[in-house]
C-alpha cells in the first residue's frame, strides 16, 4: 500500500527542481534604484549593447528596457498609467500619434542637449515636451526582379499608377486601424490627393484588387514576392530603408537589392522620446535623452532600427548611402491635423475599403 509514497516524493522533487531552476533562470536584476533609468518602448527598439554600455560609463545610469508590443500599444500603456508611471522615459511616439501623447499631458518639458543641431522640420513640439530621435519614410516597395521580367509590366512610378489596370491585384497594404505603416500610407494618399480626393483614390484601389493585411509582418514577410515565404504580391507598403535591409540580411548573397522604392509614395515619420511626467528618475531620463542625440547613438540608429538619424552630422553606413537614400520630399501632414482627424479618417477608410 506504500507505493504512492515514492510517487509523491518524485512529484515534489520534480516540482522543486523545476521551480528552483526557474527561479535561478529568471530572477535577475529587478531592483530598481535611482541609478537605473527605465525606458518604455516598442518591440522594434534596438541599440548596440556597446552603445548602451557607453551611456552607463558616461553617466552612471543603467538602462532598463520595458518593451511592450508595437508603438501604439506602448503609448496606450504609458497613457493608462501616466499618473503613476512604470517607466522614466518613453521612446517611440511618432508624428502620427504625437497629438494623443501631448494632449494627454504624458511628457514633461525638457530641452535636450544638442537639440539646436536637429533641423527644425523634425522639432514638431514648440514646448519641447518631446525630442526627435530618428526619422524614416513609409513607401510603396516594389520587387525589382518581378517587374519588367517574364512579360510583367514595368514598375509603377507614382501613386496614381497603382490604381491602373496594369497593376491589378499586385498591391498589398496594411490596415491603418492596426498598423503604423498602414496608417502612414493612408496619410500619404490624403496628403497627395487632398481631403476630397483620397476617397476616390481608395475606391479605385479597391476595384483594382488591393489586399489589406493586418500588419507589416504579414504583408512583407508572407505576401510580398521579394521577401515573403508565400509571396504573391510584388508591391507592398513598407519602408524606404528596406533595400538596404535586403542586402544586409541576404547572408552575403545579394550585392545589390532586389527591393526598390516607388517614387512619390513616401510619407515621413518622425520618432520621438520624452521624459514622462511623474517619473521616479527624471534626471536619469533626461540624461538618456541627451545621450540619444549624441553622434554615438545617432550613428548606431540606421543599422539597428533601419531608420535615419535626425542629426545631420551623423554618418550613414555605406549600405544606406548606396541603397537607401531618403526621399527628397516625402509627403507630409501636420501632427495637429493628423491628431484631430485620425479616428475619422480610419473609420472612413474602413467603410470605403473593407465594408
Amino acid at each position: 500500500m506504500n507505493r504512492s509514497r515514492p510517487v509523491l516524493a518524485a512529484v515534489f522533487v520534480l516540482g522543486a527542481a523545476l521551480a528552483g531552476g526557474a527561479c535561478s533562470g529568471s530572477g535577475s536584476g529587478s531592483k530598481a534604484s535611482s541609478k537605473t533609468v527605465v525606458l518604455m518602448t516598442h518591440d522594434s527598439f534596438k541599440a548596440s549593447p556597446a552603445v548602451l554600455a557607453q551611456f552607463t560609463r558616461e553617466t552612471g545610469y543603467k538602462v532598463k528596457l520595458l518593451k511592450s508590443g508595437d508603438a501604439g500599444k506602448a503609448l496606450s500603456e504609458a497613457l493608462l498609467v501616466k499618473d503613476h508611471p512604470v517607466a522614466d522615459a518613453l521612446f517611440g511616439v511618432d508624428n502620427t500619434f504625437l497629438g494623443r501623447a501631448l494632449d494627454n499631458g504624458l511628457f514633461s518639458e525638457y530641452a535636450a542637449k544638442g537639440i539646436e543641431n536637429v533641423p527644425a522640420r523634425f522639432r514638431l513640439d514648440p514646448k519641447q515636451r518631446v525630442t526627435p530621435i530618428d526619422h524614416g519614410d513609409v513607401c510603396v516597395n516594389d520587387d525589382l526582379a518581378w517587374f519588367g521580367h517574364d512579360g510583367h509590366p514595368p514598375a509603377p512610378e507614382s501613386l496614381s499608377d497603382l490604381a491602373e489596370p496594369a497593376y491589378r491585384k499586385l498591391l498589398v497594404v496594411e490596415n491603418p486601424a492596426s498598423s503604423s505603416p498602414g496608417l502612414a500610407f493612408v496619410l500619404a494618399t490624403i496628403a497627395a490627393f487632398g481631403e476630397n480626393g483620397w476617397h476616390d483614390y481608395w475606391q479605385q484601389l479597391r476595384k483594382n484588387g488591393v489586399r489589406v493585411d493586418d500588419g507589416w509582418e504579414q504583408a512583407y514577410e508572407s505576401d510580398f514576392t521579394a521577401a515573403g515565404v508565400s509571396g504573391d504580391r510584388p508591391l507592398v507598403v513598407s519602408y524606404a530603408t528596406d533595400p538596404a535591409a535586403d542586402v544586409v540580411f541576404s547572408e552575403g548573397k545579394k550585392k545589390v537589392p532586389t527591393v526598390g522604392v516607388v517614387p512619390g509614395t513616401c510619407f515621413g515619420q518622425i520618432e520621438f522620446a520624452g521624459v514622462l511626467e511623474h517619473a521616479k528618475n527624471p534626471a536619469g531620463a533626461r540624461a538618456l535623452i541627451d545621450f540619444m542625440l549624441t553622434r554615438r547613438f545617432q550613428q548606431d540608429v540606421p543599422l539597428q532600427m533601419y531608420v535615419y538619424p535626425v542629426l545631420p552630422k551623423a554618418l550613414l553606413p555605406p549600405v544606406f548611402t548606396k541603397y537607401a537614400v531618403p526621399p527628397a520630399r516625402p509627403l507630409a501632414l501636420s501632427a495637429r491635423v493628423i491628431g484631430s482627424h485620425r479616428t475619422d479618417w480610419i473609420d472612413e477608410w474602413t467603410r470605403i475599403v473593407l465594408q
Partner: protein
Amino acid sequence: MSGRAGRVLRAAIPLGFLGVFFVWPVAAIIGRSLTAGALHDVFVDRGLRHVAWFTLWQAVAATGLTLAVGLPAAYVVARYEFPGRRLFRAFVTVPFVLPTVVVATAFLVLFRPGGALSFLGWQRGVAPMMVAEVFFNVAVVVRMVGGFWSNLDPHRTDAARVLGASRGRAFREVTLPLLGPAIMAAASIVFLFTFTAFGVVLLLADPAHATLEVEIYRQGVQLFDLPVAAALALVQMVGVVALLATMARMQERRAVTQRLVAARDAARRPRGGERWVVAGVLGATTLFLGGPLVVLAGESVRVGGSWSLAAYRALGSASTDTLFVPASDALVNSLGFAALAACIAVVVGGLASVVIASRPGRATRAMDTLLMLPLGTSAVTVGFGFLVALDRWPLDLRAKTILVPIAQSVVAIPFVVRAVVPAIRSIDPRLRDAAALLGAPPRRVWREVDLPIALRAFTVGFGFAIAVSLGEFGATLFVARPDSPTIPIAISRFLARPGALNVGQAMAMSTILMVVTGAVVLAIEQVRVRQLGEL
C-alpha cells in the same frame, strides 16, 4: 490539515491567488473605464452586434470541428497499443504552443497559388481561419479526452457487446455517457479559446471579420477608447460566464463514479479491421497537424529561396543582436518561465480541483466558473488590469519579470482543473470508505486513494500548463516586461524586421520551439509512465 480548517485553506489559496492576479486587476480596469454611455453605445451599435454574433457562431463551429477531428484520435490513442504511441501524444501537443503568426504563415504557404492546398481557394477568409483554430486546439481534445478514456474500464463495453449491442450502440450507450464529463471539459476549453480568438482572425480571416477580442484590442489599444473597450470586455465576460456556469452544472450532473483502470490494461494491439481504423485515424491526424509543421521546418532551412543552414548558424552566432541576448537565453527563459508557471498552476489548480470535486453545490460551481474565466477574458483587459492594479507595495509587480509566469499560470490553471476534476469525481467513494474502514485517517485516504488516480490527470494538466507558458498565452504578451525574451517573443522580433535572414531565423526559432515542446511533453510522459505504471 484535515477537517474544516484544511478545507477552508484548500479553497482560500486558489481564491486568493485568482483574486489578486485576476479579479482585482480586471475589476480595476473595467471599473475605472466603464461608462453608462459606452455600454449603451455598444448595445445599439449594429456593427458590434454583428461582431458579437460572428464571435459566437465561429466559436461554436470551430469547437464542433475540433471535437470531430480530435475524438477519433483520442479513441485510438486511448484504446490501442501501437509503436510510437507516446511520440504521437507529444506530437499532437506541438501545434498548441506555436505562435499564431508562424502558423498563419505556414497555412498561407499551403493555401497560396501554387501551394499544396491552393485548389481549395482559401487564401483568406473564414474557412482557413477555422482550419487554423482546429489545428491549434486538437491537442486539447486528444489529450484531455484521450487521457480520461484510457482509464475507462473496457470490460463495460465488452459486456455490452456480449449482451448483443452493436459496436455503435455500445459506444453511444456505454462509452459516451462515461466520457461525457471529459468531452465537455475539453469542449469548454476549446470554446473559450475560439471565443477569444485573436491572431487567427487578424491573420487568416479577411479584414472585414472581427471577434470581440479583436474589437477590444482595437478600441483599447489602438484607438485608446477605454470606455468602449471596457463595455465590450464586459459583454464578452458575461457571455463567457453564462456558458461556463451551464457547463459546470452539466459536468457535475453527468459525473459518474466508475472503476478506473490502468491505461496499460485498457489498451491493446489492434486486430484485423481495427488495424485499418487505427492507421487511417493516425495517418489523417498526422497529415493535418504535420503538414504545416513540415512547412515551417522547411522554411527554416531555406534562406532567400535556396537551401541553407544560415538561419541556424545566425541564431548561434554572436553577430545576431536582434534579441540583445543570444537565442539560447531565450530558450532558457522560456523553460524557466514554463517550469515556474506550471508549478504554480498545479499547486493552485490542484487544490481548487479537490475542493470542486469533493463538494458539489452552488459555491463550488461558482469557484469552478471563476477559475475558468481567465481563458475567456480578453488579454488586453487582463494586461491593462495588471498595469492599473499591481502598482503599489507590496504588489508593485508591473515591471517585474515574475509577473510573466504569474500571468501564464492564471491561464494554465483552468487546464489543471479541467483535467483533474473529472478524474477525482469518478473515483468510487466505496474505495475511500474501504480505506477509512481499514483505519486510514482522511489525509492518508486522500494520499492512497485519490492522489494515485488523480496523478495521471495532474500530468496532463502539468503538460498543458507548460505548453501554455511555452506558447506565451493570454495576457503575457500584453504585460510590459523587462528584456528577458522568450522563444515566442524572439520569433516576433525576428519577424518584425525585413530581410531573408530574419524570416529564416524566425522559422528556425519556431522549429526549435516545436522540438523543445515535443521533448518536454515526452519527458513528462516518461515520468508519468514510470511512476504510474502499476496503477
